[in-house]
C-alpha cells in the first residue's frame, strides 16, 4: 500500500517534469524535421521563462505572461531563421549564440527591472500563475486506491499547460503526417531540392517551422516560470532544453516515441529526487548523479547505434542554396 502510493506520486511528479520537456521536444521536432538543428531550445525556453514571469508580474495575468513568453521565443526563433536560413550561417553556432546571449540577457534585464539580483518577484496573487485544476470528485476518489487515487493524482490536479501539452502530441502528429503542410515540412528536411523543384519556397517553409518551434518552446518556458514555479530565477532551464533535444533524438524525431522518451527521462529525474540518500535492497545507495546522467548516457548509446538506430532528417544542418 505504501509502495503503491509512492509509485503513484512518483508518476504524478513524472508528468509534471515531462511537460516542459515534451513541449520543447515537440518544438525541436518541427524545426529539425524541416532541416534546421534546434540547439537553441535551451535559450528560447529561458527567454520565454523570463518574459512570462516579467509580464505576469506586471500585468497580473498568467495568460498574458504565456503570450509574452511565446512572442519572445518566436522572436528568438526568427533570429535563428535569419542566421540559418536567410544568411545560411552555421546552425550550431547560431544556436549557441542565442543560448549564451539569452543566458546573459535574462538576468541582466531582471536585475535592471526588478532589482532582485537577477530574478523576478514571487508570483503570489491569484491569476499570476497557472494553478492546479482539480477535476470533479477528485478529493473523494483519493480515498479509493484503485482507480480513485490514479484519477485524483494522475488525471486531476495538474495545471492547464500540462493538459495542453498532452493534447499537442496528437495534434503535432496529425499536422506532421496528415496535412499537406506537414508533408512539405518533412520533405524540406529530407530533400529541399525536390521541394524547390515542385515550386514551393524552402525559405518560407523553414521560417514557418521556426515560428511553430518558437511558439511551442515559448509555452515550455512559460510553464517553468508561471506554472511549475512562481517566478523566474537565474538559469532556471538548467539544461532542460538540451535534455529535450536528447528526448527528441531518443524518440527518433517522431511524436509518440518522443512522448515516451520525455516520460522516461522525466521519470529518471523524479526517481533521482525520490532516491536521494535512500538505500535500496540489494543495490544499496544509488548515486543520484548517476540517475541524472542516465538520459544522456542512453541517448549516446542510441546515437552510437548500440540500442536501436536514430536516423536524423537527411538535410539537417545544411543551409539550402538554389545555386548548388
Amino acid at each position, binding site marked *: 500500500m505504501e509502495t503503491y502510493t509512492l509509485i503513484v506520486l512518483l508518476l504524478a511528479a513524472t508528468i509534471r517534469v515531462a511537460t516542459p520537456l515534451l513541449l520543447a521536444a515537440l518544438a525541436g521536432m518541427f524545426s529539425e524535421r524541416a532541416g534546421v*538543428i534546434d*540547439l537553441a531550445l535551451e535559450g528560447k525556453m529561458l527567454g520565454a521563462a523570463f518574459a512570462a514571469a516579467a509580464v505576469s508580474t506586471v500585468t497580473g495575468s498568467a495568460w498574458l505572461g504565456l503570450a509574452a513568453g511565446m512572442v519572445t521565443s518566436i522572436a528568438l526563433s526568427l533570429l535563428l531563421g*535569419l*542566421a*540559418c536560413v536567410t*544568411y*545560411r*550561417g*552555421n*546552425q*550550431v*553556432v*547560431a544556436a*549557441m*549564440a*542565442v*543560448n*549564451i*546571449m*539569452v*543566458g*546573459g*540577457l535574462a*538576468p*541582466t*534585464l531582471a*536585475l*535592471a527591472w526588478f532589482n532582485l539580483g*537577477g530574478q523576478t518577484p514571487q508570483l503570489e496573487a491569484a491569476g499570476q500563475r497557472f494553478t492546479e485544476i482539480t477535476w470533479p470528485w477528485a478529493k473523494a476518489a483519493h480515498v479509493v486506491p484503485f482507480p480513485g487515487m490514479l484519477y485524483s493524482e494522475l488525471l486531476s490536479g495538474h495545471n492547464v499547460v500540462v493538459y495542453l501539452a498532452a493534447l499537442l502530441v496528437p495534434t503535432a502528429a496529425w499536422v506532421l503526417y496528415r496535412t499537406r503542410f506537414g508533408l512539405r515540412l518533412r520533405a524540406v528536411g529530407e530533400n529541399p531540392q525536390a521541394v524547390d523543384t515542385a515550386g514551393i519556397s524552402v525559405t518560407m517553409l523553414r521560417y514557418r517551422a521556426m515560428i511553430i518551434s518558437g511558439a511551442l518552446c515559448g509555452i515550455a518556458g512559460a510553464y517553468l516560470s508561471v506554472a511549475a514555479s512562481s517566478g523566474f530565477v537565474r538559469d532556471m532551464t538548467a*539544461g532542460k532544453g*538540451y535534455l529535450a*533535444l*536528447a528526448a527528441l*533524438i531518443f524518440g527518433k524525431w517522431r511524436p509518440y516515441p518522443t512522448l515516451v522518451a520525455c516520460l522516461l527521462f522525466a521519470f529518471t529525474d523524479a526517481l533521482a529526487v525520490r532516491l536521494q540518500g535512500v538505500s535500496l535492497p540489494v543495490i544499496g545507495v544509488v*548515486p543520484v*548523479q*548517476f540517475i*541524472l*546522467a542516465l538520459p*544522456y*548516457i542512453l*541517448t*549516446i548509446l542510441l*546515437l*552510437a*547505434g548500440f540500442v536501436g538506430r536514430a536516423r*536524423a532528417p537527411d538535410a539537417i544542418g545544411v543551409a539550402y542554396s538554389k545555386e548548388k
Partner: protein
Amino acid sequence: MSTTTRQLPRWADLVLLPLLGLVAALLISAGVIALLGESPWQAMKLLVDGAFGSQESIGYSLYYATNFIFTGLAVAVAFHAGLFNIGGEGQAYIGGLGAGLVCLWCGNWPFWAVLPLAILAAAGFGAAWAFLPGWLQAKRGSHVVITTIMFNFIASALMTYLLVNVLIKPGQQSPETREFGANSWMPLANEMLTKIGINFAPTPLNLAFVLAMIALIFVWLFLWRTRWGYALRVAGQNPTAALYAGISPSGMTMLAMVLSGALAGCLGLNELMGSQHRILIDFPGGAGFVGIAVALMGRNHPVGIFLSAVLFGALYQGGSQLTFDMPHINRDMVVVIQGLVILFCGALENMFRRPLTALLGRRAERGKVES
C-alpha cells in the same frame, strides 16, 4: 558581367570581418545598456579602465585570457578538422580533475616534478573525455555536436558525484577537495617578476599564461608545419579528397578531438593550480563556451585566438569592475556581449560578407581594368 564568384581579399576576411562583427556586437550591447538607463559611453570607459587601468587589472585580464586561450584553441583545432566541439566545458572539467589529482597526491614533490605530471594528467584526462565523442563520430557516425553536449552533462554529474562523495575534504560542507600541497602551486607572475627585479602588483596571473603561449605556438606548428596538421586540415575541408590522398578522415576526426580535449583540459593548470589550489564544483565556469566566441573571432588562427582571448579576458575583468560602479549592470552583461560576438562573427557573418564582397570585389576588378 563575369559569373566567377568574387573572393573577399584576405585581409578583409581575417581582420575586417571579425572587427565588423565585434563592432556590431558592441553597438547592440551599448543599446541594451542605454535601455537599462545607464550611459553606454560611461560603461565602455569603466570597462576599459577596469580591464587595463592598473597593473592589477591587467594581471587579472591576462589571467582570464589564459583560460580562454586554452578553450579557444580547443575549439579551433576541432574546427580545422570540420568538427564542432562544444564539449570544451566538460573536457576542461575532467582535465582539471586530472591536474587536481596529481596535485593532491604529489603536492609535496618538488615543483619541477609535479608540473610535467600535472600537464600530462590535465591534457590526458581532457583528451580521454574528448576521445569518446571523437570515436563515436568517426566509427559510429554519432554527431559530435550532440555527443559533446551530452558528455558535458555527464562530466558535470560525474564531478559532482566525485566531489560530494569521494574527494571532499572530510568534515566540510561545501563539495571541494582539501588544498593542494603548496609545492604544486603555479608560481605567480608577480613572484617571478620580482626575482628579475620588476615590481608587479599581486594578481592570480601565473606560469600557466606562459604554458598557454607555448600551446599557441604548438598549435600553429602542428597545424601548418607538420604532415599530420596538413592531413587534419585537408580532412576538415574535403573528406573525399582526403580519402583519395590516402588520409583517413575518421583517423583525423579522432586525432582532432583528442588534441582539442587535451587543450581544453589544460584550463585546470591555470584555474586550479594557478589560483584556486583545490578542485571545486563547476570551476570552468563557462570558459568552454567562451572558447567558441574566441575561436570564431580569432578566425581559428593562434594569433587571432590570442588577441580575442585577451579581449574576452579584458571583458570579464572589466565587467566585474562595471558591477561596482553601475548597480543596474553586472557581469551577465559580458555574457550578452559574448553571445552577440558569436552571433555576428559566426552565424550572421554572411550579413557583412555579402555586401563587403560586392564592394571590395568590384574594386579589385576595376583596378585590373585600369592597370
